[in-house]
Every structure is written in structure tokens, then in C-alpha cells.
């Protein structure tokens, strides 16, 4: 029963004309004074003309029907042009330009009108015809003709406009910083696999991330390819009960390159500059930064776990300005995924990347060399450091900024040493 009910609901617009008889629009059937329903056998009673008479000049009847159908057709055409004009006027006057919903409502109304009018005409016609001759064939012909007519007038224009507009409606939008939630959802299984199966990341101190509000997450950078940002993001997504909004800042050079730059934007990366970070923090996001920058991911294997210089302390200024707490993070295990033996800087310059790494596998095995090694990872979120007591004015004090930046660096270095002390094996942890 329920299925029947749903079928009687107004169908999608382009389907309407094809099932005109089924009463798709739930129109109340007008009471028929004389003949009643054209299908019902009562018709035969009310007839005046003999049935056998009409069979002889059935072609004449068909002709008349054709004429009548033609009239209906012109009427319909007129009403459609009228409605077209109405829509056009609406567009011109209100300058609403194109609101899908209004247009859809308008078109639904149009179809309702057309359907009602058609049914009325058909019924009138069939009543008249049946009243005269009670010819079932005639009724069938009318019905066929009307079905044909509705198919003819199925308004492919409206259909196409609506079809295209609805396709536009389904288009996903990105957030102001270019993150595509659909893509993030799509690639999350891959990150989850890397996180739980491949690198078996073990996370400690997740409670140090505040439950709400902004926070700046400062981490050590490593691993040739910036998987560490993705893994910290995944760790927060998977382990923290309340936070899902971690964004990471990405080096400039990525955005010069095709594909990679766009991809970084779509998965939630933002170009590393103070303006972007400030906007994100003020919007209450978690922002992951790697103050070491390219120096961090490009260091040689023998320099592993030695933190490089922390930029110019931009992240400290950011915390002072926005009042965001600073969460130091240490990542251990990422240094071993692509151990860099040597670097080629000359070739890199011509391509526009900072360096080309030479690892035990990379140029040797070709693309296979790009597969990271399955080391065991540890991520520890340290105690949050609050810098808002210094106030925004302390930003100009370069010495203080440098001192604080160094303090944070030592803090992260401590975390890393702690993790390394606990670690017994690179691959098993």
C-alpha cells in the first residue's frame, strides 16, 4: 500500500507526461454528468448513434479527432508561451536571475496547469464523443493521441534546463581555503591504512590538545615527503574525541608546481604565510605548522632527529597575536621512511623544487623507490605552552621571540629524545 501511495506523489518533472493517465498529479476527477468515466461500461448505455453506423466512416471520425487534437495542441502551445513570458518577466523584474527553486516551482505549476487542462479537455471530448457514439475505439484513439501529444510537448527545454541545474546543485563547494570535504572523505581510507597498518602510529598525550578553540600545533618536520603532517592530522581525527578541524600549513614551493599544489589545497593544506595562519586560528581551527620548513624534510639521514633552526619565529608571533596556545609535538619514525643519503641541488633548481633526494631506493628502483619504508611511528603531543600573557605588543621584541622560539625547539627536541629513548627497534617499535 505504501508503495502505491508513493507512486501517486508528483513525479519528477520529466517523467510526468509519460504517465499522464495514472493520475500522477492526484487531480480530483470531475464528476461526469452524462457519460461518466470513458472506460466504464456505462458509456454504452448513454449512446445515441448506432455502433455499426460509425464503423463505416471511422476515417471521418479520425479526421475530426485529428482536428480536435490539433486545437488542443495550439492551446497548449499558447499557454506555454504565456508561461514562458511570465517566467521571463519574473527574471527581468526581480533580477533574481536564476533561482532553481523558484523556476522549479514555476514549472511544476505549469505542468499542473497543463495536466489539469488536458485531462479536462480529454474528458470533455471523450464525453462528447461517447455521448454521441459510445465508441470505445474513439476513446482509445483520443487517449493514444493525447499520450502522443504530451510526449510531443514534453518540453525538452525545461527538462534540459532543470537537468543541468540539478546537476549544478549537486556540485560540492570547497571551503574558503580550498579544502574539498568530499575528496578528504575519499582519501581518508588510504591515510587510515598508512596510520594504523603501515606505520602503526602510536599516539600519546592527545589530551593536551584543547577540546575547543584555536591552537597552534608545532611539530618537527622530517621524512622527505611531508607524510608527517597528514599523520598528525589523522591522529587528531582518529584519537581526539572532539577535534576534526586540523589544517596544516604547506611550503611555498609546492604551490608553484602543478597537481601537487592543487592537491594540497584540496586535502586541507594552506600556503604557509602569517595571514593565512591568522585567519585559520581566528576561525577557531587547529593549525599544524612545521617551523623547520624545507630544511626539516630535506636533512640527511646522519642528521636525523636533530632539529633545524626554527625559521624566524613567525609561529611565536602568531601565538602572541591571536592568543592561541602552542602545542609542541614530536614525531619519531618519519625520519626512516626515506633515508636521504645525498641531495642533488643543481638538477633540482632546473625543475623548481628545493632538492632531489637520493635514498637507497629512490632513483635506483624508479617509481618503486617512492614507496616509503614501513617504520614504526610515535607521536607525542606535549604540554600546551601559553603565550597570550605576553600580549600582541611583544611581537616587536625580536629577542624575546627568538628566545621563546628556541625554548619551543628545545621542548620538541626533549619530546623526541624521550620517544627515542623508549624505542627499541626502528621497524617494530
Amino acid at each position, binding site marked *: 500500500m505504501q508503495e502505491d501511495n508513493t507512486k501517486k506523489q508528483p513525479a519528477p518533472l520529466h517523467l510526468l507526461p509519460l504517465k499522464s493517465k495514472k493520475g500522477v498529479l492526484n487531480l480530483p476527477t470531475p464528476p461526469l454528468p452524462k457519460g461518466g468515466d470513458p472506460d466504464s461500461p456505462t458509456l454504452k448505455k448513454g449512446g445515441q448513434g448506432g455502433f455499426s453506423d460509425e464503423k463505416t466512416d471511422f476515417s471521418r471520425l479520425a479526421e475530426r479527432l485529428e482536428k480536435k487534437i490539433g486545437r488542443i495542441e495550439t492551446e497548449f502551445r499558447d499557454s506555454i508561451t504565456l508561461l*514562458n513570458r511570465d*517566467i*521571463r518577466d519574473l*527574471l*527581468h523584474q526581480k*533580477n*533574481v*536571475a*536564476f533561482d*532553481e527553486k523558484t*523556476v522549479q516551482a514555476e514549472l511544476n505549476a505549469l505542468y499542473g496547469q497543463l495536466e489539469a487542462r488536458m485531462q479536462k479537455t480529454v474528458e470533455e471530448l471523450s464525453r462528447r464523443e461517447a455521448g454521441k457514439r459510445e465508441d470505445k475505439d474513439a476513446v482509445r484513439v483520443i487517449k493514444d493521441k493525447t499520450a502522443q501529444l504530451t510526449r510531443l510537448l514534453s518540453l525538452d*527545454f525545461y527538462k534540459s*534546463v532543470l537537468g*543541468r*541545474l540539478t*546537476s*549544478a546543485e549537486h*556540485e*560540492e*563547494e*570547497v571551503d*574558503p*581555503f*580550498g579544502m*574539498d570535504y568530499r575528496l578528504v572523505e575519499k582519501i581518508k581510507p588510504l591515510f587510515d591504512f598508512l596510520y594504523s597498518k603501515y606505520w602503526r602510529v602510536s599516539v600519546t598525550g592527545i589530551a593536551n590538545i584543547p577540546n575547543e578553540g584555536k591552537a597552534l600545533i608545532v611539530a618537527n618536520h622530517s621524512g622527505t615527503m611531508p607524510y608527517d603532517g597528514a599523520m598528525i592530522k589523522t591522529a587528531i581525527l582518529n584519537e581526539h574525541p572532539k577535534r576534526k578541524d586540523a589544517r596544516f600549513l604547506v611550503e*611555498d614551493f609546492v*604551490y*608553484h*608546481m*602543478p*597537481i601537487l*599544489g*592543487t592537491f594540497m*589545497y584540496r586535502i586541507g593544506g*594552506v*600556503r604557509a*604565510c602569517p*595571514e*593565512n595562519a591568522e*585567519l585559520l586560528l581566528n576561525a577557531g581551527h587547529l593549525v599544524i605548522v612545521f617551523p623547520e620548513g624545507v630544511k626539516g624534510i630535506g636533512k640527511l639521514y646522519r642528521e636525523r632527529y636533530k632539529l633545524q633552526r626554527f625559521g624566524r619565529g613567525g609561529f611565536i608571533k602568531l601565538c602572541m597575536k591571536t592568543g592561541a596556545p602552542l602545542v609542541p609535538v614530536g614525531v619519531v619514525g618519519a625520519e626512516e621512511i626515506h633515508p636521504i643519503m645525498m641531495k642533488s641541488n643543481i638538477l633540482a633548481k632546473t625543475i623548481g623544487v628545493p632538492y632531489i633526494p637520493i635514498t637507497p631506493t629512490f632513483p635506483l628502483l624508479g617509481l618503486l623507490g617512492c614507496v616509503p619504508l614501513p617504520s614504526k611511528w610515535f607521536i607525542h603531543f606535549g604540554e600546551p605552552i601559553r603565550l597570550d600573557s605576553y600580549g600582541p605588543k611583544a611581537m616587536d621584541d625580536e629577542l624575546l621571540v627568538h628566545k621563546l622560539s628556541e625554548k619551543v625547539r628545545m621542548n620538541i627536541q626533549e619530546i623526541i629524545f624521550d620517544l627515542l629513548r623508549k624505542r627499541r627497534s626502528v621497524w617494530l617499535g
Partner: protein
Amino acid sequence: MAEPKKKSRSEPNPGAIVVTGTSGFKGSRIIKALEADNRYPSIVAIDARKPPPDTRKTRFYKLDLTETLADVKLAEILKNERCDTLVHCAFPITPPKNPSFAHELISIGTLYVITACAEARVRKVILASTTDVYGAFPTNPNFLQEDVHPPKGDRQSAFLADKIDAEKQGLKFAAKYPDRVVTILRACTILGPTIQSYKTNYLRRPFVTTIMGFDPLVQFIHEDDLIRSFMRTIEKDCPGIYNIVGDGVLPLSRVIKICGKMNLRLPQMGFKTMVQLMWMADISPAPASHVNFLRYLCIADGAKAKKDLGFVPQFSTKEALLSFVGAERLREVRLIEA
């Protein structure tokens, strides 16, 4: 000397609003909006071409800003009309084929207008500009701000250089006369049912060419919102530069998808040369110096306009695009005239 006195007696409100470039899109729409508003009894239209159609209170002067002594003639007109506010939008929306003409009109034309304004003691000058003057660079922050990020334009684009020069002249004028109000409105890409520009031409083609591997974010402003922002600046004194942008951003690929066009992704190598050749052959809508806008980010922050100007766009980026696309489709089936 006798004539202006007579005029001042006949006019209750001496402050006329002068609009330049009234046969262009912005100018004609501003004239239309001013005509409809009863607060502005005196409107003056200045253009080198035909006067604005069906106007009641607008007086039209034919003046070519590229001719010599245009500044003297303009100053005379402004003095005679007792001009209070001047809206300068005699700029080509589309980069013209003739670079020297573009320079004459944009850079020198603005110079003439500014000197005439200085001479005729015009109280308020409003300059129309675009957010394209920031230039598209991979080093751009996601939201460019008026007072933080200087307009860099493009090294190869004379069109954008002229635009920046026009802005600079306006700012110089503002610095020289602190009692005058100079407003510069930087609008992002304008879309809507009636606008025609090189960007709409770009979106109108069956194949929209983009660069492989790049998918920059773009933002649009609806044409009605743009005119609303101009009207807002006319009624309120807001010196400074304002970004006029719609809310939200869209990736270029999605824009093309919504337009229902085919996205033809071409490799980066040789793209610029191809575009330049096509521009010379009159196929490409813009010269090669605009290719960077297909590659890198150029998104402006409209927060200052919201805060100081009180301008809140009524159409978001997506709505502006949908209105353009809808009008295009109605035009396709001839429901509205082209």
C-alpha cells in the same frame, strides 16, 4: 561667470554627480540606478560615445578622454555643473587589442580626470578598479587585503600596469588634498545576466581551456551587487580602497562544470605562447599575460567593505555564477534577448 549663477538658482541642490564612461556596462548601470533614486536630482553623463538611453534628469556631454585638452574641457564641465561627486568608470573591462589606446584611456585618461577634479574642487572621486591588479601568484595568501598587500599586477601585462597606475594617481590626489574623498573599488570578476567581458567570453565557449594540474579558486560578484556597492559609496563617504567580492569561492574546474562546458586541460608547456598566438588571431579572449589567473590564486578579502562601507553582497559567488549560467541558457533558447 553669469551663466553658472543662473544655473545655481534653478537647481536646488548644486552637487551634481558626474559619471564618466556611461556607454560602458558599469557607467550605464550606475546612471540607471541614479535615475531611479530621487535623492540625486542632478546627474551628468560623460562619454565619448552615445548618451545613455531614456534618461530624465541626466545631462550628457560628449567628451573623449584620450583627446588633447580633455582635462581643460572636463574641468569646465565640472565647474559649470558644480560637480560634487565624480564616478570614474571610463575603463575598458576587456583588455583592448590596441595597447597604446588602452594606456591613453586608462592611465592618461585618469590623469586628466584627476587634474580636472583638482581644478574644479570635486569633493569625492570614486574610481572603478578590479582585484586583478593584485596579480595571481603562488605566493599570494588565500585572502588578499587592501591595506596589507600592494597590487603587483603582472610583469607582462600592460593592461594591469595601467590600472595600477590609475589607482596610484587617485591615491596621490587623495594624499595631496586631504579634504577630498577618494574611494577605489576593486571588484572581482563580475558575473550576471547582462555583463559582457573577456571573462564571460571565456566561459561562453564550448571548450574552456585550463592548465593541466592547476585548479585555482575563483570568486565572483553579481553585477547588481557591484552597482549597489557604487551606490553605497556615492551616498556614504568612505575614503580608501575596498575589495568588492561575493562570499565564498569555487575552484575553476567546478565553475566550468556548472557552466556545463567541457574542460580542456592543456599542458603548461607552451600554453602562454599558444594563448598569445590565439590572442593575435582574435580567438583568445585575453592576452597571455592573463594566463597566471588560470594557474595561481587571486582571492580578495571583502571584510573591509563589509565593515567600513556596510556593503554586504546579496549574491554569493555560486549564486552569481548560477545567475550568469541561467541567463546564458535562457538566451540559448531565446527566452531573453541577447
